[in-house]
């Protein structure tokens, strides 16, 4: 498998996740798009780990999954707090700090 294909795949995933974060209004879909960007980083780690015969990339992918789990927990806590406050998961409703 060519490295170029894997790197481009990771980059496509990252761009889609970035678009989702910036363009969607539902808080949960924004969190899911962040997970897409995590997956892009994981694909790159695993690809270069295989290319250089070095297991460090795989170790970092395991850490990345741990960080993603923490992000999911905090994100859902924020979601529930927002929903208590606004009765909505729409990100545009959270505008208290707008000047």
């Amino acid at each position, binding site marked *: 498998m060519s490295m170029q294909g894997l790197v481009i795949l990771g980059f496509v995933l990252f761009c889609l996740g970035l678009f989702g974060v910036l363009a969607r209004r539902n808080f949960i*879909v924004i969190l899911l798009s962040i997970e897409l960007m995590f997956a892009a980083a994981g694909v790159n780690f695993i690809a270069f780990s295989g290319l250089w015969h070095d297991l460090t990339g795989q170790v970092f992918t395991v850490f990345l999954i741990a960080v993603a789990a923490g992000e999911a927990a905090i994100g859902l806590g924020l979601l529930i707090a927002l929903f208590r406050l606004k009765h909505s998961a729409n990100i545009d409703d959270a505008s208290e700090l707008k000047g």
Partner: protein
Amino acid sequence: MTIGWILLFALIIACALGVVISRSPIASALSLLVGFVGVAILYLALKAEFVAAVQVLVYAGGILVLYIFGIMLTDNEALRLTRQVHFQAWPVFLLVLVLFLWMGHKLYHSDYAATPPAAKVMVVSGGDQAETAIAALQAQSQVAAGTNTQRLASVMYGNFLYPFEAASVLLMVAALGAVFLAKKEI
């Protein structure tokens, strides 16, 4: 590049697109689930069996279930009737497209795939040691016998013991923070 790779890539990218553009959040979550299974198959094909198993267990089994719980807790009719895409979607699309084209051009013309970093340092510093460095790296990867999981464990609990502990502290702090944020009176 065989047909299997192309199908796998197409599956992953289609699922990622489904996450971003589908109207209902539950469809996004299920699309992401299929995409993560696709990524796990990719990890298997790249000989990272343990990470593939962790990907399916933790992501598909744990994190996605949490997200689906979140969707069930917060879904209501009013949200489904509003526009799902922000008014800034088109500028963002252009921005991401420009980023994609620029970085894709850079990636396509870079030589990242050529040599391992250690050997590259050797090449820069002093001539004929490069072959020795590459041979040493290859020998190192073959000397460490055993399955992928055994070798990964020896690396993770050897060189990366302290980062591993830091990750567990991070998870604990995240769980405490989630409980604190979701409390009734914040």
